[in-house]
């Protein structure tokens, strides 16, 4: 058991200094911008594929923050988190693909405004 964590330490000794705020900030800014682009895109676009890409963008924005923070705190938690985020994103992609294909067969359109059966 000890070996594993000595290896882990070695990996961290390669970059032992904490990342200071001026290095961290650009990462956070890019991540926040990605998140906002995704959010705004989700609300303004009508194409299902684009809307899905926007949610993916938001997921990856969170992933970028996690990695930057992980480096900032010199821990492996952030990177671990990102692996799981990627998995969930892949699962959602598979699901979105299936749903969009099914829908396209029904309506021959991918515009969100083409589906208005449920309203009230």
């Amino acid at each position: 058991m000890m070996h594993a964590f000595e290896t882990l330490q070695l990996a961290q000794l390669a970059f032992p200094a904490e990342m200071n705020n001026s290095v961290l900030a650009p990462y956070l800014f890019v991540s926040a911008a990605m998140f906002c682009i995704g959010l705004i895109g989700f609300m303004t676009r009508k194409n299902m594929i684009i809307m899905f890409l926007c949610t993916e963008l938001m997921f990856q924005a969170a992933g970028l923050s996690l990695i930057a923070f992980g480096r900032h705190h010199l821990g492996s938690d952030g990177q671990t988190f990102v692996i799981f985020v990627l998995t969930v994103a892949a699962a959602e992609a598979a699901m979105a693909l299936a749903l969009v294909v099914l829908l396209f067969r029904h309506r021959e359109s991918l515009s969100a405004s083409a589906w208005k059966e449920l309203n009230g």
Partner: protein
Amino acid sequence: MYTLAEANEISAYLPVLLMIIGAAGFAGANLLFSFILGPRRAGERKGETYESGMDAVGTARKRFNIRFYLIAMVFLVFDVEIIFLYPWAQTFTSLDPMSDSSQIWLLRILFFLFTTLVAYIYGYRKGVFKFD
């Protein structure tokens, strides 16, 4: 304890506010500028699928076989499993092969792969792997 901002004053929120304004402004400005500056030309060449490229042949509405989607999704599932094997393998090689913990780690990954097996059996019964 080191944290990014310690104080609970309202001024501590200023960077965050600036960040939000900056990020939302960046996103909004992109939309706005592409709306204002983006050229809007209509025409025969402009309407082509690949502008100044090859002429498109046939229709894009051609139906693909459902198999392609199934294969794509199955690939996605098995593909993602690999990223869990990589950190496991990294750690496993540094464990003492005789120790209990290495056996436990092995059992864990075997259980993880067992779930892949279940997915495989499911796909097989569903007929995903029948190429006829």
